[in-house]
């Protein structure tokens, strides 16, 4: 396989193709006849997905650095380059994107009945933008793609959504734009710093990594970036756009939103937040704040989810809980935690995507999403019930499914660094059962009473073709996650090493006799402050009020 890929020079053009082929597909879809648009879009996205599969082999699992890097000047006077590359973190995000786009398009055949060409064109635009987010190694380019994802999603929710679609679309747009504007300010600040430091204008990721920042600067920049990404994730209490967007979005919109758009937030944590601001990221107050928010997110949204009358809203809230596990793993700042967080990202993409697809199929049949309207569906739709049960179990992290591997590792990693918080987060395991099982029971079990429910059809061939690969992936990753984990490990280590080295350097510069263990300076708040010296990266300086601001 590797030889074949080499012979066609795959590594040189693959990343470009994954961005620009969907864009080309937009043209094809718009050019096609209205009723053929969905077929064209589906096969085109399948083509892109198959093409992206080559990354699995072309990727060198032993290296933690950026691979397949290509670069071309874009706006030379500002030092902006069109440069792409992937590592073990983005590899899976790209695959998840191409995969879920195909699945989502196939899943929207019956759901989208109006303006089909426009819809599928937007889906392909979304795919291009999201892939761009994950492969961009130029911060400016990243920002452009990051914002570009808002546009198609805004229209998908706003045009094909439910009754309150306008409210949801605007809320989604404003919420996320608010966060990313703060990030833009942060990026510009970094740009000027980099320009002074490098002696030339640059937006390159690698250059930004080299920019020396004082502890205070890091804290402020951390807050700006963290707010942008936390809105996307979403981290409690910035999550309220998500349930509305999910409930109003059409099924494919929800699938893409859950499967990949949320991941852009946690991807940002891993790609930018930790490596750019290593001192801030391991500042005890910052870490504790993020972990506490993650734990609140896990438990609080589980509770809120449990009392939702609307099935889709329930699943939307569970997304927040799942992403809480990701944040928990990321800010554990160790190998287990980060890898666990990444697996949760993948697993959540698959299982929550599948849950939205299943609920969409249910909605197509019954035209309601109110849980109480259903009952006893398992008797008339056994395959449906089976697929739903497998997905629900993967979602609540039953061992043997992908959800368990991720949550287990994330919790284990968090336990290594913060046992008490991890202990509280583990209670989320109980509440996962508390929100999911009553829904499963009310919808699929209990007595089959109404005639509408009696008429519900089982899965058809197309729907099985959608769900089979999803369910298979949940179980395969559950039993053999090693191929995934081994590809992530070097990149994850790179991130952690960077954080730890910066911590060690800072400690050395501080001239403290206390040795640094595990990169986390628990004693940082007690360190004597000498704010006059610019070279000392003193974390004490102004950091405490800064973090307090960030909490709100």
């Amino acid at each position, binding site marked *: 396989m590797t030889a074949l890929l080499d012979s066609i020079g795959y590594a040189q053009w693959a990343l470009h193709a994954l961005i620009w082929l969907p864009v080309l597909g937009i043209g094809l879809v718009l050019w096609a006849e209205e009723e053929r648009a969905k077929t064209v879009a589906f096969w085109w996205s399948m083509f892109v997905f198959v093409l992206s599969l080559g990354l699995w082999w072309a990727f060198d699992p032993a290296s933690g650095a950026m691979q397949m890097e290509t670069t071309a000047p874009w706006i030379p006077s500002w030092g902006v380059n069109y440069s792409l590359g992937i590592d073990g973190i983005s590899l899976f995000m790209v695959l998840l994107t191409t995969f879920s786009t195909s699945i989502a398009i196939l899943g929207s055949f019956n759901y989208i009945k109006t303006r089909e060409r426009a819809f599928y064109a937007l889906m392909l635009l979304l795919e291009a933008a999201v892939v761009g987010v994950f492969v961009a190694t130029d911060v400016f380019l990243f920002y452009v793609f990051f914002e570009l994802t808002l546009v198609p999603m805004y229209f998908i929710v706003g045009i094909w959504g439910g009754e309150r679609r306008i409210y949801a679309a605007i*809320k989604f747009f*404003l919420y996320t734009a608010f966060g990313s504007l703060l990030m833009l300010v942060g990026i510009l600040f970094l740009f000027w710093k980099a320009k002074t430091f490098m002696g030339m204008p640059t937006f390159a990721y690698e250059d930004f990594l080299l920019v020396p920042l004082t502890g205070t600067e890091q804290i402020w920049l951390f807050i700006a970036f963290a707010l942008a990404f936390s809105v996307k994730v979403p981290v409690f209490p910035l*999550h*309220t756009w998500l349930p509305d967007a999910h409930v109003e979005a059409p099924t494919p919109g929800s699938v893409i939103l859950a499967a990949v758009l949320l991941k852009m937030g946690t991807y940002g944590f891993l790609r930018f937040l930790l490596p750019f601001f290593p001192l801030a990221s391991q500042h005890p107050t910052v870490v504790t704040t993020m972990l506490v928010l993650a734990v609140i997110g896990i438990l*609080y949204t589980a*509770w*809120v989810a*449990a*009392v*939702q009358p609307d099935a889709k809203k329930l699943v939307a809230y569970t997304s927040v809980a799942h992403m809480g596990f990701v944040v928990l793993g990321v800010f554990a700042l*160790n*190998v*287990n935690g980060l*890898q*666990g967080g990444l697996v949760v990202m993948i697993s959540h993409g698959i299982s929550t995507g599948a849950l939205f697809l299943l609920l969409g199929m249910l909605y197509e049949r019954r035209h309601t999403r109110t849980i109480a309207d259903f009952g*006893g569906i*398992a*008797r*008339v*739709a*056994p*395959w449906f019930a*089976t697929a739903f049960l497998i997905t629900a*179990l993967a979602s609540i992290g*039953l*061992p*043997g499914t992908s959800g368990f*591997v991720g949550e*287990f*590792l994330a*919790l*284990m990693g968090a*336990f*290594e660094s913060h*046992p008490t918080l*991890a202990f509280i987060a*583990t*209670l989320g*395991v*109980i509440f*996962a*059962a*508390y929100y999911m*099982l*009553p829904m499963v*029971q009310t919808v*699929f*079990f*209990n*007595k*089959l009473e109404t005639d509408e429910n*009696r008429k519900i*059809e*089982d899965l058809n061939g197309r729907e099985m073709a959608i769900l089979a690969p999803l369910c298979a992936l949940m179980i395969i990753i559950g*039993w*053999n*996650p*090693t191929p995934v*984990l081994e590809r992530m*490990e070097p990149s994850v280590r790179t991130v952690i090493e960077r954080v730890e080295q910066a911590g060690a350097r800072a400690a050395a510069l501080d001239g403290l006799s206390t040795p640094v263990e595990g990169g986390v300076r628990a004693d940082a708040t007690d360190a004597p402050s000498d704010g006059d010296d610019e070279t000392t990266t003193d974390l004490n300086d102004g950091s405490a009020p800064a973090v307090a601001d960030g909490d709100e």
Partner: protein
Amino acid sequence: MASLAALVQGGGQAATEGGHFEPFFPGLVVLLPLLGFLANGYLALQHARASADAVRGGSELDLGDAASRPATHTLPTWIGPGVMAVAFLITLVNFTRMLGAHLEEPVVIHYWTWIATGTFTVDAALQLDQLSMIMMMVITGVGTLIHVFSVGYMKEDPGYPRYFAYLNLFVFFMLVLVMGSSYALMFVGWEGVGLCSYLLIGYWFSDREKADAGKKAFIVNRIGDVGFLIAMFLLFKNFGSVDFVPVFHDAETLVYGGGLVTAITLFFFVGAIGKSAQMPLYVWLPDAMAGPTPVSALIHAATMVTAGVYLVARSSVLFALAPLSSAVVAGIGVLTALFAATIALKQNDIKKVLAYSTVSQLGYMFVGVGVGAYAAGVFHLMTHAFFKALLFMGSGAVIHSMHEAYHATHNHEDPQDMRNMGGLKAFMPITWVTMWIATLAIAGIWPFAGFFSKDEIIWYAGAWAGAENAPYPGLYTVYWILALAAAMLTAFYMTRMMVMTFHGANRTGDEESKHLHEAPAVMWVPLAILAVLSIFGGWINVPEALQSGWAGLGGVLPMSEWLHHWLEPITAQAHHVQEVNLGQYSYYAPFGGGEAMWAAISTVAAAIVVALSIRIVGGRTVVAVKDDTTELTGFAKVLYNKYYVDELYDRIIVQPIVRASRFCWKVIDAGIIDGAVNAVGWVSKGTGWVVSMFQTGTVNTYAFILTVGVLFVLGASLF
């Protein structure tokens, strides 16, 4: 592919590690039930499709008579029990091979790397040793019998293939639980059996109460699972691994009685409390009786609920290092034993009696492992699997017969209520005899299996109290007395159940009683086999002190402490820790007297209680449910209502959480957070509205403002 090859070959490197022991396809033991699940599951889905079409058409799928049923309904009869039988035979071969070998170290067969993050690695590997072998024998052996029994019991059920699919899946997970070579893999089985338990309790899911019971079991179990997870995290943090071999190898680096080992073991025990239905998490088990009766026999009596005991026995060295945890284990065990036994006194549902009896007996097992008698705990686990599976299946035969009687006469009485039974021995003699054997066994009457196992547990509780440096001698004396008391209660309520069910006058109804019948052979043969095991099963571990005395028939029973010696490689480390820190067990019970004397006292006392119970209960007039107007009062009412524990939990835990959830949603989420977000929106809109007042739309106003503006700017620049 490589792993598949290894699976079939049975693992190449095992032989070198295990000395003479050559494993015989151990992977197949696990794989077969899984294949059975896949095959039955596929048939079940096909079957369900046909049934769904009928339901959509407004009717029910007609199964027709036995001869003309579709393959989807008949094939599971062979697949379900078939895979179990083969798995049992393979286990048997392995067992005999292990008998011949002197296996000191466990044999670990590696298949593939399950999770490897770089700092944490856990393999998909099976561990074969004396403990897992005993468990495998119980699971596949008793499991096969229950599968066979199910063929008769579930014959007329429309979900027949689905039933066997779940049952096979359960066995798969149970085997993963006991054969896994690490706590992580054990946890896979641990939650997997919880899932199957959920599915099987709610097997008749159209009935809301039954579906609720399944859900309750799953959620309560998950509370325990959190403990298990935390214990694993602690292990990883301190040992860098959760595999059995390295953890136990390094276990003795932990401080004896230290906080860490106490925390680890207590968290593990929280897991065990959930899974093995101990106080305060036992509430799911009585409700679990909503499942089909063979399920209660397999999952909620013989195998799954004993997983907690297996966990403690497996971690024996850790528990031996933590005397406080051991005391808690034994304490919870004895309290549960007594508490559940009192509730069982007043229950009228035959399965509920057995359910509380199971809770109570599980308490005994925890007393055993809590006083360091790990072999005794496992021993009771094994004998209990025999006689409790027998009791459940016997009750299943009774319910089956009662159900058919009521069904034939279109009567809607409760076929499980003992008040509707009575005098069944005339109709079901085999069931009657076999169940009496099991009752005598559970009551601890010599020479039945339960006598040896229960007596050993009670004895060790007393002997532990007298150990040289016993940590809490007074406490263990109390445990010992309570355990003896609970044994007497056991004898009483079990006899009450037998008398109410089988003796006295029949209360089923005149017309109905004509339809009562003995169970078919496919059901009573497993009963008979288990009856034999319930008699002789205890003889494999006759205590040394009794072997030459009366209880061992002066040495006629040959296998003195066989199980004890068999498990020696597993428990040796724990016993070493105990001997170093606690010294020898006492040879006398707290108030004097040796093992032989107390064994005699307890069996005679149990026999007296049985006789008393027959007199008392037999002397009462029991009336059928429809005529029963008795109002229970006082303590009897409290017992009948199970001490109102469910109501209490509902009020202090469930309702507050639901209320808090609503509060979080309505007040915090929709009110405060989203309110703030919307408020931002409203403020912007309001500002816009105010500003838009200046936009009148009349040209003159604009021209006027423009002119004023120009004049203003001009004026400002001039002056």
